[in-house]
C-alpha cells in the first residue's frame, strides 16, 4: 500500500497545469473548473443582460417600437432562464469550486472528475437552450415559469428543446451539489468541526441540500410537460381529468426553494466580507447557521404564495400566508446580525465591503416588499404586476448579483495574485447602485398603479416611470462592462497581492500564497 501511495505521490506532486486547451477540457482541478464556471456564468450574465436591454428598450415608450410582442415574450422568458440557470447558479458553483476546498483545507473537490462533467453539462444545457433562439417558431415564450397549457398545447416547437435543456442543467447542478456536500462533509481538515466552518461553507452546504431536493422535482414537472406535448397525457388538461394548476404546484415546490438557492450562498459571502472589513468577528455565528437552516426548511412549506390568485381553497390560502410571513423572521435575524457585526467595528470601505453594505441595504428593501407580498389579500392586487418584478429584482440583484460581485473583488487577489483598481471598483459600485435603484425602484410604483408584468405594450399612464426605469436599466447594464475591464486590467497588470491582502480577513484561504498554487493543501492543515 505504501509503495503505491509513494509512487502515486511522486507522479502527483509538483504538477502545474497541463498545456494548451487540453488543460481546460480534461481538467480535474477545482481551481480550473471554478474559473471556467465563473467565466462562463459572466458570459451568460452579459447575454441575459442584452435581452434585458431589449425588453427595457421596447418599454421605453408605450406602443410597439423595437420588437413584436411575440419576440418580446421570448426575451422575457430567455432573460429569466439565462440569468437563473446560466448566470447566478453557475457563478455560485464557480465560487464553491474555487473557495470551498481552500476554506476547509481540502486538496480538491471530493469527486474531481464528476466536477468537470458538471461544468461541461452546464455548457451543453446552455447550448441547447440558446439554440432555441434560432429555431422556427422562436424560443420559449411562456415565461421562465412555463405554465401549462401555454407551454404545452400552445407552446412553440422549441419547448421540447427547452425541456431537455432543463433536464441537463438540472443534472449538472445536482452533480455539482453532490460534490459540494461530499467535499464539506468528508474533506475538512482535521480540527475543522462543523461549527467552525466559515459561513460561506455553511450556506453552500444548505444550498446543496436544497438543490438535490428540488431539482428532481423540476425535472418531474417538465417531464410531465413533455408527456402532455408528445405522448397525449392529460396531466395539465382538465378534459382528461388533469389540472393546469398541478403544474404550478410542482413548479413552485421547486421554485421557492430555488429562490433561496439563488440567495443563500450570497448570505454566506456577505457573512465573510462584513467581518473582514469591520475587523470584528461575525455577530451571532450560531444563530446565523440556525437561521439559514430555518429558512431552508421553511422554504419547502411556502410554495403556494406564488399562487394566491389561482383559486386555492381558503385553508390553503391561510396556511401559505402564515408560513410565508414566518420566513421573514429568520431573514430578519440575518440582517440584524450583519448590522451588529458592523456596530462598534472598525470599518473600511474597499469595494467588496461597499457591495456588501449595498447588499444589506437593498436586500432589506426586497425583503420588506416580500413581507407585503406575503399578505394574501393584498397579493390579489400585487400579484403578477411590476411590484413583484421590483421585489424579486431587489432581492436578486443586490442579493445574488452583489454577493457575486463582492466575492469577485474579495477573492480576485487570491485567484490571480493581483489587486484590482480600487478607484474603478468604487466607480463600478456607485454606478451599479444608482442604475439599479433608478431602474427598479419605480417598478414598485408601476405595479401598484396597475401595470401587469410581461407586457410588451402598456397604457400611457405608465409611460413616465417606464421611461425612468429604462434609463436606469441602461446605466446599470453599461456599468457591468466596467467590471470586465477592471478584472482584465487587474489580471493583466494589477499590482501584486499579498497572501492576505485584507488585514481583517480570517480563514484558511489566506494562509496559501496569492495566486493560490495549482495544488493546495495536499497535506491537510491543522485547525484548532
Amino acid at each position, binding site marked *: 500500500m505504501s509503495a503505491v*501511495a509513494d509512487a502515486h505521490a511522486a507522479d502527483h506532486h509538483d504538477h502545474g497545469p497541463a498545456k494548451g486547451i487540453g488543460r481546460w477540457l480534461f481538467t480535474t482541478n477545482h481551481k480550473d473548473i471554478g474559473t471556467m464556471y465563473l467565466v462562463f456564468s459572466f458570459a451568460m450574465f452579459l447575454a441575459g443582460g442584452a435581452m434585458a436591454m431589449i425588453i427595457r428598450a421596447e418599454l421605453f415608450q408605450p406602443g410597439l417600437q423595437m420588437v413584436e410582442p411575440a419576440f418580446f415574450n421570448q426575451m422575457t422568458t430567455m432573460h429569466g432562464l439565462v440569468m437563473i440557470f446560466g448566470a447566478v447558479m453557475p457563478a455560485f458553483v464557480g465560487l464553491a469550486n474555487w473557495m470551498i476546498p481552500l476554506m476547509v483545507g481540502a486538496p480538491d473537490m471530493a469527486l474531481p472528475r464528476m466536477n468537470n462533467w458538471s461544468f461541461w453539462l452546464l455548457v451543453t444545457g446552455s447550448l441547447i437552450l440558446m439554440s432555441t433562439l434560432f429555431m422556427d417558431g422562436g424560443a420559449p415564450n411562456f415565461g421562465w415559469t412555463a405554465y401549462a397549457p401555454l407551454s404545452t398545447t400552445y407552446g412553440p416547437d422549441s419547448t421540447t428543446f427547452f425541456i431537455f435543456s432543463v433536464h441537463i442543467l438540472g443534472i449538472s447542478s445536482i452533480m455539482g451539489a453532490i460534490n459540494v456536500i461530499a467535499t464539506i462533509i468528508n*474533506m475538512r481538515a482535521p480540527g475543522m468541526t462543523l461549527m467552525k466552518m466559515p459561513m460561506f461553507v455553511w450556506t453552500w452546504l444548505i444550498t446543496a441540500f436544497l438543490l*438535490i431536493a*428540488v431539482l428532481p422535482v423540476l425535472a418531474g414537472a417538465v417531464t410531465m410537460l413533455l408527456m402532455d406535448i408528445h405522448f397525449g397525457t392529460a396531466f395539465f*388538461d382538465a378534459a382528461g381529468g388533469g389540472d393546469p394548476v398541478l403544474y404550478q404546484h*410542482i413548479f413552485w*415546490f421547486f421554485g421557492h426553494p430555488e429562490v433561496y438557492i439563488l440567495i443563500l450562498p450570497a448570505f454566506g459571502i456577505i457573512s465573510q466580507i462584513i467581518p473582514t472589513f469591520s475587523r470584528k468577528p461575525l455577530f451571532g455565528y450560531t444563530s446565523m447557521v440556525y437561521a439559514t437552516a430555518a429558512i431552508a426548511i421553511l422554504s419547502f412549506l411556502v410554495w403556494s404564495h406564488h399562487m394566491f390568485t389561482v383559486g386555492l381553497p381558503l385553508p390553503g390560502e391561510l396556511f401559505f400566508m402564515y408560513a410565508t410571513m414566518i420566513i421573514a423572521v429568520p431573514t430578519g435575524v440575518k440582517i440584524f446580525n450583519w448590522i451588529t457585526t458592523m456596530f462598534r467595528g472598525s470599518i473600511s470601505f474597499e469595494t467588496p465591503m461597499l457591495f456588501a453594505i449595498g447588499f444589506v441595504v437593498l436586500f432589506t428593501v426586497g425583503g420588506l416588499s416580500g413581507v407585503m407580498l406575503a399578505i394574501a389579500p393584498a397579493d390579489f392586487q400585487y400579484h403578477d404586476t411590476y411590484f413583484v418584478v421590483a421585489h424579486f429584482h431587489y432581492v436578486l440583484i443586490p442579493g445574488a448579483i452583489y454577493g457575486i460581485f463582492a466575492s469577485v473583488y474579495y477573492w480576485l487577489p487570491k485567484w490571480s495574485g493581483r489587486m484590482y483598481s480600487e478607484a474603478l471598483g468604487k466607480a463600478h459600485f456607485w454606478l451599479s447602485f444608482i442604475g439599479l435603484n433608478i431602474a427598479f425602484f419605480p417598478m414598485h410604483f408601476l405595479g401598484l398603479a396597475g401595470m401587469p408584468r410581461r407586457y410588451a405594450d402598456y397604457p400611457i399612464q405608465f409611460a413616465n416611470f417606464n421611461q425612468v426605469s429604462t434609463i436606469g436599466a441602461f446605466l446599470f447594464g453599461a456599468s457591468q462592462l466596467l467590471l470586465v475591464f477592471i478584472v482584465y486590467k487587474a489580471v493583466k497588470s494589477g499590482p501584486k497581492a499579498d497572501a492576505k491582502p485584507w488585514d481583517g480577513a480570517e480563514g484558511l484561504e489566506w494562509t496559501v500564497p496569492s495566486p493560490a498554487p495549482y495544488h493546495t493543501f495536499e497535506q491537510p492543515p491543522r485547525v484548532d
Partner: protein
Amino acid sequence: MSSNQSYYVPESSIWPIVGAVGMLLTFFGLSTVLVNQSNGDPTTTAWVVFTVGALVLVYMITGWLRDVIRESRAGLYDAQMDRSFRQGMSWFIFSEVAFFAALFGSLFYIRFFAVPWLGGEGAKGTANMLWEGFQAQWPLLNNPDNSQFAGPDAVIGPWGLPLLNTLILVTSSITLTLSHKALKYDKRKPTIYWLAATVALGAIFLFFQIEEYIEAYSHLHLTLDSGIYGSIFFLMTGFHGLHVLLGGIILFVVLMRLIKGHFSAHDHFGYEAGAWYWHFVDVVWIMLFVFVYVI
C-alpha cells in the same frame, strides 16, 4: 477524520467532455425526433444523431468505469475516498427520492383535489358546470371530455401480476441481502449465486411489467392518452421500470466484477452502491403497489 495525504485526485480525464458531447448529441437528436414526428417531418437524421450520441455515452460510461476500477485495483483509493463515494451515492439516491416524491405528490393532488373538483365535490366543485354529466371516481374510467380523452375500459387490478411482481421484488431484496451477508464473510460462491438470483428476479419483474403494459394497451385500452389515470399510471410505473432496468444493469456489472474477484469482505463499495440502489427501487415499488394499484 483521517489525513488527506493520499486522497487521490486524478490528473486529467477525457471522460467528462466526452460525456458532455454525448449528452448534447443524444438530447438534441431526441428533441428533434420528437418535434419532427409531431410535425410530420422526416426523423431519420435526428435518429442518427441520437444514436451516435447514445453510443458516445455508452463509450464514456464504460471508459470512465474502467478508469475508476483500474485506480481502485491499483490501491489508489483510501478510506476517505471510499467515504466520498458513499456520500455521492447516498445523495444521488436522495435526489431520486425527491423525483418520485414529486410524482406521488401529483398522484395525490389529482386523486384528492383535481378529480373531485371536476366532479362537483369540494371547495371548487363549481368546475362541474363545465363538464356536464362528469362524475368523479377513482380509478377514472370516464374522463370529463371523453371525445378528447377516451377513458380506459378497465384498469389493472392489484391482485394478479402486480402482487406477483411485488413478491418478486421483495424476494430479490432478500436474495440481495443474503448475497451481501455472504460477501461480508468472504464466501465467494453464495455471494455470486444470490446476486445472480437477484438479477434474474429483476429481469423477471421487468418481463411481467411488459406483459402488463401489453395487456393494458391491447385489451383494456388503458394507455398514456386515455386520460389522467393512464397518464399517471404509466408515468409512475414507467419511471419505476426504468429504474429497475438501471439497477439491474448496475447489479449485473457488479456480478461480473464479483466473478473477476474485484471485491473483498471489507472493500466493496461498488457492490454496496448497487445494493442500496436496488433496495431503494424496491421500496418505491411497494409504495407504488399500495398507492397506485391497491388504494
